[in-house]
């Protein structure tokens, strides 16, 4: 009899912990990918067109992940992602123009 409420308490605690870890872990996963993707903005001119395309795709994927976050995180990181993605698109277009036959 004594053990039943204790069991319920332990289960509730475990569920809360799982939910919290999921949130933290979830944010941690996209944050790590964001850092990796947007770390190359200063080197963008040295990257190949294929690499830039891959980075742009990463940014698009990250936008979806960030869109499910709370308001402030969305406000900050969507803007950062937009700037990062736009720069890569800009550099890719510049390189594509150079490669185009005259």
């Amino acid at each position: 009899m004594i053990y039943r409420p204790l069991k319920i308490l332990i289960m509730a605690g475990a569920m809360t912990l799982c939910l919290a870890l999921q949130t933290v872990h979830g944010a941690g996963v996209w944050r790590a990918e964001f850092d990796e993707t947007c770390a190359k903005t200063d080197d963008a001119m040295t990257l190949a067109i294929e690499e830039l395309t891959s980075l742009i795709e990463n940014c698009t994927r990250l936008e979806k992940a960030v869109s499910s976050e709370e308001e402030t995180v969305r406000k900050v990181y969507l803007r950062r992602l937009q700037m990062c993605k736009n720069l890569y698109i800009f550099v890719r277009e510049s390189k594509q123009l150079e490669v185009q036959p005259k």
Partner: protein
Amino acid sequence: MRTILFSVLVLIVGTSISWGVGGMKKRKLPPYEYGSVVISNFSQPAGIPPVVFDHWVHRQYYTCRVCHVDVGFGMTANSTKIRSTDNMKGFFCGTCHNGRSEYNKKRIFASCAKEYSREEYKRCVKCHVLERSVAREEEFFRFADRLPRETLGNGINWEKAEADGLIRLTDYIEGTSVKKAKMKIQRDFALKAKTEGMPDIIFSHNKHTVWSGCELCHPDIFVGVKKGATKYSMVELFDGKYCGVCHDKVAFPQTNCQRCHSKPPQG
């Protein structure tokens, strides 16, 4: 009587036309006010004074890039829509103004709080300014005194101050900024001036990337991918486009012609 009435009418119409064409003469800002931004999306509706953000206080410590890219502040006043809750969560102003971060071993004061005492209200008015203080003006002149001079804007040659090591800029905030490899030094290039007799513009990517990085300008401010494709006019610049996004607001004013219209590049 008719002559007097006619003269008065001509005077009124003439003044109105010149006012309409030329506008009110803009007040020349004192050096301590140059670069000040009034932020008031939500303050005044909440019954507190707007925030007066002084760029000179912050740009002696941080690059433009770290605030406008990493922290996420917009490039125009009131575009970021900062809430006190954002600051309290450690974003925007709260990235540094959190009561825990330090700069040069000095604790940076916390920004917004949900509840505060009468004593703590002194902290609120550091940013939510009721009126300009003489103490702040004196603080500016004490700061500017040791830096290279310039005639316009803040009266400080920020570029020279940074190049001479008189100010050391932080381009990275732990937990916010992304670790990046050092940027390759970019070459200067010339832009042909449209007006005959005006020296060409020497644009230095190197000087700009020290403060702004790449993504602050490209592509939001400078859209053209092909060099020479975008034709810039001083009218557009004075209207706040292209170079005018920063110059005339925070960076040195565009009326300082020779800073850009200088001699052709060597070699």
